[in-house]
């Protein structure tokens, strides 16, 4: 294995931008300040937190007071889903989500089923889009919450959230959107999208891992039961000493995304399309997801006639993800690709190639050549 594989797994996590690191270091080198303390060091810490809150809010066109810092998008998803379902249980005990959601959403829904809630999971079409009509049909008077992601983490499919929000409004259901893969990649305007709750993560966009946020609409303000209690920080929604360096890092990452996101997304889109043009020349390669409604940084391709795990191993000089092993612990074929109607073999024989700020044309071209060579070699080994 070469010492420095080409990193193409930016949808899993991204390297810190050096400017984000500098913002974090400034905190890590400061005198200690618990933002809850009354002395000057505490107040300085609080000012840093509030500056970052404004930067995060700004990227999604939200007021700063609508931002609740969490330990990541996993926690934000859980706070939104468990919190809204439990907080509105007197109104109804039905939720709607989608089969292609992130595990954080699906597993939170699974927990709610054990607490006596009913969950309807919609199946998207073969290109990954949820039909607003299907959502309408699933909504009942007991539906309190709908959870739909903005950008899918495996395929990059961009959902038409505004259209789905309209359905939720008609029925008075809250709408939660997981935007962990969307922030900094496509524009987000919580007002235009008309969402009630929206999850964010810093480490998908060159910020630190272990920090995220939940947008909670101000008016009308959804009722949420917190996941954790004590101290009453973040308006009581998320108690715990605020991690100032982490929050400052998220603020810096979101500020950079606001300033540089649009041209950078255009650049990544160009690289993504260049990569796809190179791979689609291989016979039996299939684009997973939607050809148009998709994020600029993710390309997901299935290859006929090869084993996904073998392909990934043959490509150990590329750091990327495969439908064969979305997590190190499971070798199941991707449930996301399965939900788009791919059979087990194609779902398993897929690569998710995801791009980020450091990605170059040269890296993309090298990756394309290596992938083609690996697919061809494995096919030559296989029974004809």
């Amino acid at each position, binding site marked *: *294995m070469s010492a420095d594989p080409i990193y193409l797994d930016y949808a899993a996590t991204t390297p810190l931008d050096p400017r984000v690191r500098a913002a974090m270091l400034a905190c890590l080198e400061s005198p200690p300040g618990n933002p809850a303390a009354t002395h000057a060091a505490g107040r300085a810490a609080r000012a840093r937190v509030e500056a970052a809150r404004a930067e995060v809010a700004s990227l999604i066109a939200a007021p700063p007071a609508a931002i609740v810092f969490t330990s990541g998008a996993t926690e934000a998803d859980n706070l939104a889903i468990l919190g809204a379902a439990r907080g509105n249980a007197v109104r109804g005990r039905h939720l709607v989500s989608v089969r292609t959601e992130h595990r954080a959403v699906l597993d939170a829904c699974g927990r709610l089923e054990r607490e006596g809630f009913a969950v309807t999971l919609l199946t998207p079409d073969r290109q990954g889009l949820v039909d607003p009509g299907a959502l309408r049909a699933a909504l009942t008077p007991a539906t309190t919450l709908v959870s739909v992601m903005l950008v899918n983490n495996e395929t990059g499919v961009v959902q038409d959230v505004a259209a789905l929000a309209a359905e939720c409004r008609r029925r008075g259901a809250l709408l939660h959107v997981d935007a962990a893969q969307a922030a900094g990649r496509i524009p987000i305007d919580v007002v235009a999208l008309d969402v009630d709750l929206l999850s964010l993560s810093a480490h998908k966009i060159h910020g630190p891992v272990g920090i995220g946020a939940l947008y909670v609409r101000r008016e009308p303000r959804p009722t949420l039961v917190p996941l954790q209690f004590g101290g009453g920080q973040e308006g009581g929604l998320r108690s715990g000493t605020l991690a100032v360096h982490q929050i400052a890092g998220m603020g810096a990452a979101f500020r950079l995304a606001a300033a540089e996101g649009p041209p950078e997304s255009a650049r990544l889109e160009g690289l993504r399309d260049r990569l796809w043009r190179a791979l689609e020349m291989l016979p039996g390669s299939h684009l997973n997801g939607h050809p148009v409604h998709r994020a600029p940084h993710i390309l997901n391709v299935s290859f006929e*006639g*090869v*084993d996904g*795990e*073998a392909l990934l*191993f*043959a490509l*150990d000089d590329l750091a990327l993800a495969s439908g064969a092993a979305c997590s190190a612990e499971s*070798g199941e074929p991707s449930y996301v690709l399965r939900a788009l109607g791919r059979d*087990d*073999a194609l779902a*398993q*024989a897929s690569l998710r190639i995801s791009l980020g700020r450091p990605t170059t044309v040269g890296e993309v071209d090298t990756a394309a050549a290596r992938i083609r060579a690996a697919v061809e070699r*494995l096919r030559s*080994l*296989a*029974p*004809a």
Partner: protein
Amino acid sequence: MSEHSPYSDAVARLFRETPGAGRPDGPGWANGEAREPLSATHVRWHLQATGGRVAASRYEVRGCPHTIAAAALIANQLAGRPLTDLGLDLPRVAALLGCPAAKFGRLFVIQDAIARAAHVLAAEEA
């Protein structure tokens, strides 16, 4: 958990080099196939025999790195063995390769393909 790859050095080498892989041409070869649908593992094994014993062995395989490496390892060990006794010590193969338990089933696909090839050859020789 460790910093190490889930694949042993032996798997890495055999997967990279796949000695003995390929579809032979020429006379005297027989082959057998086997599949495991869940993992889409597919093995076609080719044998050549002289005097009731394996003379040469080739394989085609679609499968995970462990399966490919196991095929390469086994192909190298069959020469000279009697067609009537090609049973494999699969636990030993698994141990040599550091094959995780969840994948043992895939090694049987190789064994089945070899058995079928041997069956065909034995029938032809008979």
